[in-house]
């Protein structure tokens, strides 16, 4: 499909050029400015990825870094990215990994062999406080009402929030501990993605909802939800600046975040923020560590970064160096028992058992049918359709080659080779021409998607 590829490339470049032209011109980088790589251990779109991309923008525009590359390495609450960072970037003084509270709990629930003790803490950057809400028609007016009902009959109160082991569940478990409710009594209902949890609270399908203030801001403003408590240590700013993101002068109407009492005020000693920060690889020198720390703390004070915080509704939580290291240790000590205990009370996996049973039964039935048919009409099934083993193995080799070479040789070279092999497999004899076409196609795709859109595709040694 070379046509749409070319077309798309041209367009993406136009979009970027147009958008960049109207953007402010960045300061020229200092000669000592580094070429940084920031690993976002999540897919494009989430808080970690946005942190990495905002850092990329701010560092580039302010000239603090010569170039900044963002690499997405998603998976398993960030632990896959962490493991790769520790092994692949060890000793690299110009690499950073975005981390946060969810990684602390993910390391525990996924039994990750690599932990945050294996990396070099640089700085905590930003975060969001959590808010506990109920639907408009709920009988609970204050957190104390809700907690009283929770204590009386724990299972009758259902808490809706994000995925299991995330910040929302951690808050509910901290509340349960503080209220003296046993861990097995918590009826936490995990929703994937903020929208579904919000819908469940709005439709009153759960008793209470837990999420970042930003996620519920519009509904709190319109009065469809009532905020019972915020997980901050003290009252937040009245505009909800701490996390509601009313930066562009469109201030909240009808909802005053400073009017939301803290959990502490209502008698339970619980404070929680969904913090995010950056760490460096293990094995870097003291000097490299100091220079990364000073780079990040200069960045966090810059006007561009502060504007980005407001725009995204993030609270400034800058904490640099050893203090950040100590903070990680404290959070690990506090959070891990909660999530490990919640994982320990494993329920019976009836669905898994059912599915596996059905698979075995279906395969057995199909096998029996085939056996019977063969017995009855041996002539039809005697000859198996022949396979073109040569073609098949060439195409299979192409897939293996692509997987093996994409990182060391780069996307373009690996793809050109794979293309040539597939073409050979389908009977083409013009190897040089095929290789040229494959190379051209891969180059167009690379330019369009890696350079144009910012999709991470490996460049290889020839880029």
């Amino acid at each position, binding site marked *: 499909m070379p046509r749409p590829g070319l077309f798309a490339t041209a367009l993406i470049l136009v979009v970027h050029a147009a958008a960049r032209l109207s953007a402010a011109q960045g300061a020229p980088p200092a000669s000592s400015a580094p070429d940084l790589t920031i690993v976002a251990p999540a897919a494009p779109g989430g808080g970690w990825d946005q942190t990495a991309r905002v850092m990329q923008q701010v560092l580039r525009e302010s000239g603090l870094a010569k170039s900044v590359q963002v690499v997405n390495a998603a998976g398993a609450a960030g632990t896959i990215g962490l493991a790769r960072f520790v092994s692949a970037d060890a000793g690299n003084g110009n690499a950073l990994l975005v981390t946060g509270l969810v990684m602390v709990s993910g390391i525990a629930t996924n039994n990750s062999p690599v932990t945050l003790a294996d990396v070099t803490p640089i700085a905590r950057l930003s975060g969001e406080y959590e808010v506990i809400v109920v639907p408009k028609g709920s009988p609970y007016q204050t957190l104390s009402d809700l907690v009283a009902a929770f204590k009386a009959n724990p299972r009758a109160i259902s808490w809706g929030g994000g995925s299991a082991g995330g910040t929302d569940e951690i808050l509910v478990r901290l509340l349960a501990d503080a209220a003296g409710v046993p861990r097995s009594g918590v009826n936490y209902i995990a929703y994937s993605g903020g929208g579904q949890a919000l819908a469940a609270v709005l439709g009153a399908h759960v008793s209470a909802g837990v999420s970042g203030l930003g996620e519920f801001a519009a509904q709190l403003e319109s009065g469809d939800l009532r905020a019972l408590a915020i997980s901050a240590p003290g009252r937040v700013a009245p505009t909800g600046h701490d996390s509601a993101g009313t930066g562009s002068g469109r201030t909240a109407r009808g909802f005053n975040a400073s009017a939301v009492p803290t959990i502490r005020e209502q008698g339970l000693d619980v404070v929680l923020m969904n913090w995010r920060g950056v760490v460096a690889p293990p094995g870097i020198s003291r000097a490299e560590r100091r220079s990364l720390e000073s780079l990040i703390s200069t960045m966090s004070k810059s006007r561009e970064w502060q504007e980005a915080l407001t725009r995204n509704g993030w609270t400034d939580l800058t904490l640099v160096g050893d203090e950040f290291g100590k903070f990680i240790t404290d959070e690990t000590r506090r959070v891990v028992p909660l999530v490990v205990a919640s994982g320990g*009370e494993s329920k019976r996996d009836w669905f898994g058992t059912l599915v596996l049973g059905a698979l075995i039964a279906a395969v057995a039935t199909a096998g029996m049918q085939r056996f019977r048919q063969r017995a009855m009409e041996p002539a039809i099934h005697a000859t198996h359709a022949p396979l073109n083993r040569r073609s098949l193995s060439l195409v299979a080799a192409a897939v293996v080659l692509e997987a093996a070479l994409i990182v060391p040789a780069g996307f373009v070279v690996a793809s050109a080779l794979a293309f040539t092999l597939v073409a050979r497999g389908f009977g*083409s004899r013009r190897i040089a021409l095929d290789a040229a076409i494959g190379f051209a196609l891969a180059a167009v795709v690379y330019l369009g998607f890696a350079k144009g859109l910012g999709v991470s595709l490996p460049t290889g040694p020839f880029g």
Partner: protein
Amino acid sequence: MESLSPLFDGFRVALTPAHLGWSLIGVVLGTAVGVLPGIGPALTVSLLLPVTFSLDPTSAFIMFAGIYYGAMYGGSTTSILLNTPGESATIVTALEGHQMAKAGRGGAALATAAIGSFVAGTLATLGLALLAPPLVKVALLLGPAEYFGLIVVAFAAVTSVLGRSRTRGVVSLTLGLTLGLVGLDPRDGQARLTFGIPYLLDGIDPVIVAVGLFAVGETFFLAARHGLDIDELVPLKGSLWMTREEWKRSWKPWLRGTALGFPLGALPAGGSELPTFLSYGIEKRLTKHPEEFGRGAIEGVAGPEAANNAAAAGTLVPLLTLGLPTSATAAMLLAAFQQYGLRPGPLLFEQEPALVWGVIASLFIGNTLLLVLNLPLVGLWIKMLSVPRPLLYGAILVLASVGAYSVHSSPADLVMLGVIGGIGLALRLGDFPVAPVIIGLLLGPMAEQQFGRAVSVASDSVTQAFARPVAGSLLVVAVLLVAWPMLAATLKRFPLTVRRKP
């Protein structure tokens, strides 16, 4: 929203040359990413977010809306021509669409997909402009029990009609369900079927499975059969366009697809795949040409294609009226709104009427642009079938790897792509249908989650959870769907029975 006058104001905003330009860029970009398997509108919007911040919000959203609709069009093109769904919402399109393409009716399949998408997109956008607030109120009443019912109906609608042998269909379906088990148990975060491999903790991405089973599996299969049998791929038979008969058979599925897709898309947990499965099932039951299903029935393209576009518009209902993102793309659009300091929700229509109505108007415009762009391209796309096989399949493999690699930046996804491709080959060689695997993989985890939530919400009582009018009736409908063939056979013995719609 009682009158259409704000919509006309919206057109005044959207019809400026600059905004038309952004809409055009959006639809073309959307078509391009829709064509590429694995790279979808959500990823595109998220990657464009940092660059578009310097644009004014209206321009940015007009472009994003174009990307969203464009991707739905682009995804169907590769489904039909190459049996390679670009998005999960266009998997069903491949079933009949590719058979049509093989039989020389690819032009008609592309046309019915494009016109159906246009009709559905336009009607659904009108629905969005007129019905959004009441619709969303109803949608919120549906809880996990109702969603579970709906998913079971989708299972019943699709599984009872797929494949020639029911046993084989069930093998494929349970295989898909098993693949869906891999990863963390959604209720307590325990690892399942991960065999200690960290890569598997997040489960197997349905897009990788779809691309692996269809694109890579098909490439393997054709390579395995290369030079052995004459594959009767006819680039074009008869007219390039739809015949009168094909028009006649298309328009009802378009409307039915729209009627299914729009409300289901508006549900917080509806999604755009569910309505395509349901639409396929319904069309297969209602058609006067049941013998053509599986061999290229145009209804099987027209209905699901209308359904996925209507669902895309439906998704915007909860997003704009409540600030509820119900799909990955909607979540990215919400993030985009927040970057501009805007909060989609009950107050957005009051606070930012020019933006909201401008975007809604641009949806109409984007839809029209897509139709105008795509219909003349049908001839060109069809030529793609004449690209020599060696080059075509080489290109498919390269494009499939881009999508698979880019999400995790990990060669492990390419390995998974190859493994799933191998499974696809084995299924094809053993004459097992491929589509039920995807259906199981997509719907299985949804069903499990909603069932678990329904029971938890009802304080752990299964009977209490489903003793709700809507949930209960949906489960009854599902049972009737499965039992219908037997029931129909019994009823046939009584000559006076009137044919009823299921």
